[in-house]
């Protein structure tokens, strides 16, 4: 056998791929190649976001990257026998994954590098356009960076959809010896995983985004508040932060700019409420994650009482590309008040789940049927929950709603963090309404009565409705009233938005409550 060139093989290290056996695939591949004396370079990339094809293995051939999937560890010897290292045919051959119909029409802007690059290799990041945003930002006065973000039309992707540039302006204007950038990586909404994919698959994008934010608003310290449920992301971030520091992209006098910025990761401890920004800031200070009244806004008085720019992962990871390509290029995507792209996360009972990044405008139906291919169970779709546990359930008749802020809010729904969860016709919507309230009761920080008590009373009420105890109509009317109180009287979005799934279930699926 002649000496072979080193073949690069990508086996995702993404938590989702690992949950389906990617580590075993990587282990067997490395072992088999050693045994066969085939030198390979094994890269643990992020996931391309086609989860039904994970573990999705890509081989770099003379003709480009060739994908195979879903690959099980037991498939590896046969793949090697078939010559998959040269991109030869096999039952699992998918070809160039970027030509796959799921990916071909996506507009990967924020997620452009996920699954493509080696997330631990800063040079690979730079070779794929990384740090061009920082370079542009370093050549601008801070206020120009702020104006660029304002001009991009970017709105917070964590759920609240607040205009990002306005926040930057506010923090920029504060006079303080110390300011902070706090990244909310407490991605707790069921149905969402874009933050996780970004941190695992392209952590330098988040680091670069936070660095640019620090330069713009005058902050020298950043914190990433990461949920403890994400150990893979924690490892990916720790590796990337170490490399960025070593290479002078973080720390004192970064890139010889005369400016300082560094980032520390802080782990949460399993509290959904800490995804709410004031609660997160409390938790970052080592306290109970109790929500506090705004004002003062975190942008004025945030972490340790200092001006703090708070954004979620997707928002911050979008900053580099906005700086690199300019505000207009980003703003031209999308429509109305929803500018740029949205990272839709499709999950639950769906045949093809994963990540879809597109300019705003896709409808729920196009996502669920076009990309998702309908339910995994093969049964009819009955309900689709958009926006996590605080998002509304949409029935079949509303699936033509575009996935954008205004269109959803006109239907008493919300986009939230853009998680979309599909349910088939076996779902009992009274039980889902009960779960929404139960979840609120479990996760309420306890500070305000409408949320703390309302959620518990709501669960009791639904138990009576489900068990058909007492006067059903009166119970349903009382539930509606309780929703009013929670929606209007709660301090934050947990109590204030829990009525959304409850009310939508009541409105669209009344038969389940009789």
């Amino acid at each position: 056998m002649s000496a072979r060139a080193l073949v690069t093989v990508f086996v995702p290290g993404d938590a989702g791929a690992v949950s389906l056996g990617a580590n075993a695939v990587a282990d067997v591949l490395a072992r088999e190649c050693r045994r066969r004396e085939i030198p390979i370079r094994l890269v643990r990339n992020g996931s391309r976001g086609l989860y039904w094809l994970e573990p999705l293995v890509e081989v770099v051939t003379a003709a480009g990257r060739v994908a195979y999937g879903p690959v099980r560890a037991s498939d590896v010897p046969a793949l090697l026998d078939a010559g998959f290292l040269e991109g030869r045919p096999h039952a699992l051959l998918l070809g160039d994954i970027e030509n796959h119909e799921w990916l071909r029409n996506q507009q990967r802007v924020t997620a452009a590098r996920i699954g493509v690059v080696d997330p631990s290799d800063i040079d690979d990041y730079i070779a794929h356009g990384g740090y061009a945003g920082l370079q542009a930002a370093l050549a601008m006065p801070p206020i120009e960076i702020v104006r660029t973000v304002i001009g991009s039309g970017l709105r917070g992707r964590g759920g609240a959809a607040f205009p990002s540039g306005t926040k930057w302006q506010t923090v920029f204007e504060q006079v303080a010896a110390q300011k902070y950038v706090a990244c909310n990586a407490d991605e707790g909404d069921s149905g969402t995983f874009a933050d996780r994919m970004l941190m695992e698959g392209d952590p330098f994008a988040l680091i670069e985004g936070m660095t640019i934010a620090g330069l713009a608003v005058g902050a020298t310290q950043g914190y990433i508040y990461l949920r403890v449920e994400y150990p893979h992301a924690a490892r990916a971030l720790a590796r990337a932060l170490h490399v960025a520091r070593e290479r002078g992209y973080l720390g004192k006098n970064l890139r010889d700019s005369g400016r300082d910025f560094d980032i520390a990761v802080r782990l949460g401890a399993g509290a959904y409420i800490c995804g709410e920004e004031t609660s997160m800031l409390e938790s970052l200070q080592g306290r109970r994650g109790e929500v506090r009244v705004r004002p003062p806004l975190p942008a004025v008085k945030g972490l340790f009482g200092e001006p703090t720019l708070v954004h979620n992962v997707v928002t911050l990871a979008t900053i580099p590309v906005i700086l690199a390509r300019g505000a207009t290029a980003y703003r031209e995507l999308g429509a109305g008040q929803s500018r740029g792209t949205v990272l839709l996360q499709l999950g639950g009972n769906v045949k093809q789940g994963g990540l879809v990044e597109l300019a705003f405008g896709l409808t729920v139906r196009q996502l669920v049927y076009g990309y998702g291919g309908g339910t995994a169970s093969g049964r009819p779709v009955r309900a689709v929950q958009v926006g996590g546990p605080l998002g509304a359930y949409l029935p079949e008749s509303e699936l033509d709603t575009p996935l954008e802020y205004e269109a959803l809010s006109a239907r008493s729904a919300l986009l939230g963090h853009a998680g979309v969860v599909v349910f088939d016709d076996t779902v009992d919507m009274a039980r889902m309404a009960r779960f929404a309230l139960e979840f609120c009761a479990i996760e309420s920080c306890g500070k305000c009565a409408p949320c703390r008590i309302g959620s518990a009373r709501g669960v009791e009420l639904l138990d009576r409705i489900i068990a058909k105890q007492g006067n059903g109509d009166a119970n349903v009317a009382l539930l509606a009233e309780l929703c009013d109180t929670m929606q209007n009287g709660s301090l934050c979005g947990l109590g204030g938005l829990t009525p959304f799934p409850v009310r939508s279930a009541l409105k669209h699926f009344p038969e389940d409550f009789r």
Partner: protein
Amino acid sequence: MSLAPAAIERSVNNAVARTRGEPGPLLEILHAVQNDLGCIPPESVALIAAALNLSRAEVHGVVSFYHHFRDHPAGEHTIQLCRAEACQSMQGDALADFAKRRLQLGFGETRKDGKVTLEAVYCLGNCACAPSAMIDGQLRGRVDAQALAECADAWGVPS
């Protein structure tokens, strides 16, 4: 199993020393102690409080606020089953019932023989591969009753 007072003190001291100079270090300290000892022993609360110049009530308030912190060690093995919506949409309720039956446990409980702890978690960020579970710290997707039964069998949990 109770922990030796000296071990608790050493663990707290190490955690406090490691976070010295950091602002608001309580959560960091609690993580370090739990990683070290498997739980936040009630005896550690006074030590942590003294080191940070907080009241015991304040420290207890933080420990009890967060679901992740436990005041006694988990069993030899831990199954954290996701109970959030995406996993429910994939027959998560039936899976939860199976887990409870097979392990003879409710959520938040540890078997008397100390073999297994069963916990409910709300979203592991793996919603396109539902239902999901974290089994001994390893994320598993598309978990079914058979996968859970295999774990229980391998761990010698009597059926």
